[in-house]
């Protein structure tokens, strides 16, 4: 059995207090092995994205313990969490979330710069070329198609060569052709050793993952391994 790179132990997240208290995540325990590909499914507003934010250190749990890549997140300060996100975790979002005033190349460069890389230009260009977007380097995100923007977003997430990719509906805004391309790309990344954890509503996309977790009311209600994996 591979070593776990993501471990959650009775993790809860509560917003508000008293009568306005909402439990977004409720005593979730789970592990994701190194090189694994896990899809999280479930209805909207049942805590999938919150779970991803907690694992990515964007928010802190109200209760429980999260260990990412061997580091317990509760022991890290804001700056150390930022460093973890810069170098060891890559985020990919449904709406691509590229910075609109920076070119495709600069969007990747900024991630490299935040990760502490000095020669950002060369490495960013390499990444763009690897994703077939070398000729789009000087294009602003608004000049790219949805599929191209998502590839830039993935290139940005991979800029500092993190071991883990956290993805929130990565195919949610893509047409079926782009979705197919993206799944192939994710498959290649996974084959190269990246651990993928993605939230999705799409059963076809979830089918590509090794495991599918179903979340309801902030709890994991099922954890199934896909047959073909």
């Amino acid at each position, binding site marked *: 059995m591979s070593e776990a790179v993501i471990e959650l132990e009775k993790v809860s997240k509560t917003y508000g207090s008293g009568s306005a208290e909402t439990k977004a995540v409720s005593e979730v325990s789970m592990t994701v092995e190194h090189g694994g590909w896990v899809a999280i499914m479930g209805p909207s507003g049942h805590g999938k994205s919150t779970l991803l*934010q907690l694992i*990515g250190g*964007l*928010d802190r749990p109200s209760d429980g313990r999260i260990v990412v890549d061997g580091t317990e997140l509760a022991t890290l300060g*804001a*700056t150390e969490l*930022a*460093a973890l*996100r*810069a*170098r060891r975790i890559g*985020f990919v*979002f449904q*709406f691509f*979330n*590229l*910075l*609109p*005033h*920076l070119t495709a190349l*600069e969007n990747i*460069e*900024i*991630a*490299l*710069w*935040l*990760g502490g890389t000095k020669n*950002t*230009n060369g490495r960013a260009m390499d990444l763009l070329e690897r994703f077939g977007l070398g000729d789009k380097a000087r294009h602003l995100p608004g000049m790219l198609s949805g599929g191209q923007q998502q590839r830039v977003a993935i290139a*940005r*997430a991979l800029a*500092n060569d993190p071991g883990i990719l956290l993805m929130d509906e990565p195919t949610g805004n893509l047409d079926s052709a782009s979705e197919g391309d993206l799944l192939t790309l994710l498959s290649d990344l996974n084959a190269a050793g990246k651990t993928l954890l993605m939230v999705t509503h799409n059963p076809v996309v979830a089918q590509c993952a090794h495991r599918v977790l179903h979340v309801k009311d902030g709890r994991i209600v099922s954890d199934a391994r896909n047959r073909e994996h």
Partner: protein
Amino acid sequence: MNLWTLVWRNLLRRRGRFVFTLAGISMGMAAFVALMTIGQGLTKEIKKQAQGLGANLVVTPKGWCAYEQISVLTGEQLPEAIPMPELEKIRGVAGVKSAIPYLNEKTAFRNQPVPVIGVWPEEMRTLQKWAIESGRYFNSPVERAVVVGSAIAKQFKLQPGDTFTVRGEPLPVIGVLREAGTKNDIATFIPLPLAQQIYGVQDKVSFIAVQVTDLERMEAVSLKIQEVANVAVVSDKQLLASVLSIVGTVGTAMQAVAAVGVLAAAFGIVNTLLTAVYERRREIGILQAIGSTRRTLFLAFMFESGLYGLLGGILGTAIGGLSAYLFGPYLTDNAFTASLRQAPMPTLDNGTVLLALGFSVCLALLAGLYPAYRAARLSPVEAMRYV
């Protein structure tokens, strides 16, 4: 990619807002720099005029107001109020090296007002160390002739041999004084008795410039003069201090108004940056997700603010310096300073430039503190809601 690239790109995203915010701080700084430069130029010039007086003590009629005292320096027309017998008493005081009377009047020449000063020719020449540029000086203390200052000669194209009219009395121009850089350049001089006759003020003068034999005893001489004659005495230093105090007060008040303008512009920066923080919440969330620290976000907004201050300071200093150069002489053209129009233009010195830039950048950085703090304290999850 570095922080500056990010800041610069952010700054230029909303070009209209960038330009108007920059215009605000630039205009405020321009007014501040212009007023400071003009004030400095004026102070410098007044000091020079005071030195040009060549006297240690100035004897004035009792009860003169500050305006009249200043007029001694600026060469304005003055009331003829000291009787000649008082002059004789003053000349008799021990410790008085020389006591030279001035009758400050004005005439209209070719429809322009021109100062006419009645003097004792030889005493004035010695006191002022005058040199003649062309023509000659007075031959006698009662010669019916006029010697003109260099700027007046230039302005009216006067040469020795021309005629200058004093209150309808045609007088030959016999000489032109060498340029001295003082109010004497923009005045005309005639012997005192002639001036008294033309202006019908027999036996009276405007003020008396006194030189003392021993500077250590200046205070005692001053007291003695006031004892023997019915006059008031001010030292050249007191006179200068009094003028500078008025000019300084006016200057400080104007600079304070300009500083309020800069302060208002600083609030413009706060407003612009707060709007930017609000607009960029989503991007702040993205930056946090891809590893930006709070410090980086804070610095990005502080640099943006500082750039407004630096660019606004540079532009404002340039505009202010140019305005002072172009409009300074007109702004200072008032009753106090009429004769300083011929003064050298206000010039921007390094100290003023550094002070203005420092003030602008510091104020902008102060203005940026709150927006930068807001950006840095934005919770990633809060920001991610806009993702």
